[in-house]
């Protein structure tokens, strides 16, 4: 049994409940014990725009919470994962900054050493748990489906920091999909951004980015799109209707978190995976129960 601190960040525990539900449901079946970090806060990454020191302090604080419990940290959000990785590497290179941050952490009886390993959903499933172990737990392979992969910018870039997959040719999500029976292939828009990080001040541009990506995937005949980023999922699934209105096209592409797809393939009760909260038409897929069936 591997214990991991479940560091949810901001967007997952305040609105992307389907991601959290499927994480809590699926990962324990792979012998992972998720430990809640009750005292955690924002990872600080969104504040890079405002004040870099605050970003480092918040990241170090969240990692220090894990160090106190003596466990590694699992951040399902790529933006958090990148922020934490950047802080970890910067503090390793800069002992003076580390001391300065530790003097602030002391006020809460916390200390940051830098001993915590960081995981994201992608490397946790693909590299730690492994494809064989996943294949063993598949009960109902999703053989009839062809899905496109959406990695999220911060999952793969920048490559001067340790990222879960290759920056220009990531394939782990495709391999994970194939392991549960789903067909997939590369498409030209695969690395395109969803616009999520400018939604608060450039709403229309952000929705246009999302809409164009959804339209491209839909036009190429995929049955759906698989995500591993809560910001991307929020744009491509939760806001799919607004994106359609913004670009003036009709969009009806099922979008699911990979871990939801995995849960379905493992035969987990679908209501436990938060599938009712996907606002794209996921029940167009035969494998997915309609809302009425789920109730």
């Amino acid at each position, binding site marked *: 049994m591997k214990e991991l601190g479940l560091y949810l960040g*901001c*967007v997952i*525990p*305040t*609105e992307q*409940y389907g991601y*959290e*539900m499927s994480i*809590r449901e699926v990962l324990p079946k792979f012998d992972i014990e998720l430990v*809640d*970090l*009750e*005292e*955690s*806060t*924002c990872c600080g990454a*969104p*504040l*890079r*725009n*405002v*004040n*870099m*020191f*605050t970003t*480092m*302090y*918040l990241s170090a604080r969240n990692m220090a919470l894990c160090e106190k419990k003596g466990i590694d940290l699992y951040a399902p959000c790529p933006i958090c994962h990148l922020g934490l990785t950047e802080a970890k590497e910067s503090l390793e290179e800069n002992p003076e*900054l580390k001391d*300065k941050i530790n003097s*602030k952490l002391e006020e*809460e009886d916390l200390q940051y050493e830098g001993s915590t390993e960081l995981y994201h959903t992608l490397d946790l499933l693909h590299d730690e748990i492994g494809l064989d172990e996943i294949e063993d737990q598949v009960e109902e392979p999703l053989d009839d489906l062809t899905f496109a992969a959406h990695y999220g*910018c*911060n999952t793969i*870039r*920048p*490559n*001067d920091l340790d990222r879960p997959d290759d*920056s*220009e040719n990531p394939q782990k999500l495709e391999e994970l999909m194939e392991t549960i029976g789903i067909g997939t292939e590369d498409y030209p828009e695969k690395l*395109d*951004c969803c*616009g999520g*990080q*400018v*939604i*608060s*001040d*450039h709403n229309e*541009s952000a929705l246009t*980015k999302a809409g164009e990506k959804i339209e491209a995937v839909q036009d190429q005949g995929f049955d759906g799109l698989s995500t591993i980023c809560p910001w991307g999922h929020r744009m491509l699934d*939760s806001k799919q209707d607004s994106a359609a209105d913004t670009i003036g096209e009709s969009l009806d592409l099922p979008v699911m978190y990979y871990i939801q797809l995995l849960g379905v393939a493992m035969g987990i009760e679908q209501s436990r995976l*938060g599938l*009712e*909260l*996907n*606002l794209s*038409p*996921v029940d167009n897929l035969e494998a997915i129960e309609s*809302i009425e069936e789920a109730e």
Partner: protein
Amino acid sequence: MSLIDLTSMAEPDEEEQEKIEETLEGLKEDIPDLCYQCGKCTSGCEAFILLELEPHSIMGKSKAGFIDELVNSDEIWTCMQCFKCQERCPQDLSPVRVIFALKNLAVAAGKEIPSGYQKMLQSVLGNGLIQQPKEVLNRANETRKREDLDLPPVPEPEDMDKVQQILMKATQEKLR
């Protein structure tokens, strides 16, 4: 000091020059002596077509010392933070990090920053997260809260006041 002031100055304003040098010194690691304006960053920039962000021009202007001009501009706030510019720079430079540094300078100088970021900052200072837990809809248009879904309470520091105080002080600090 603006672009126009700089180009129309008959006599060099040493005090201003010093200020620029100082600012540049702070940005030294990121600033782009080595940028040869190939424009690869801009060709892949996710915000170029819709929001007219041109990372190569930001690099060019920083190199020429027009920091104030950039700090006061709206364009630095259009970056989608996709990191493609850094990834694809043949000189291993990082326009996105220059843009972060410029935004930090804008905040430190008390410039008006876009309301979305302002709100985010206030929320983190207030309760530790960029937003409060929301009631969401399901596909049948019914509302769902965390507790309806058997999810535990959202994490929050036990002593939020203390964290708030530390954060307030932290925002006054500069990284370099």
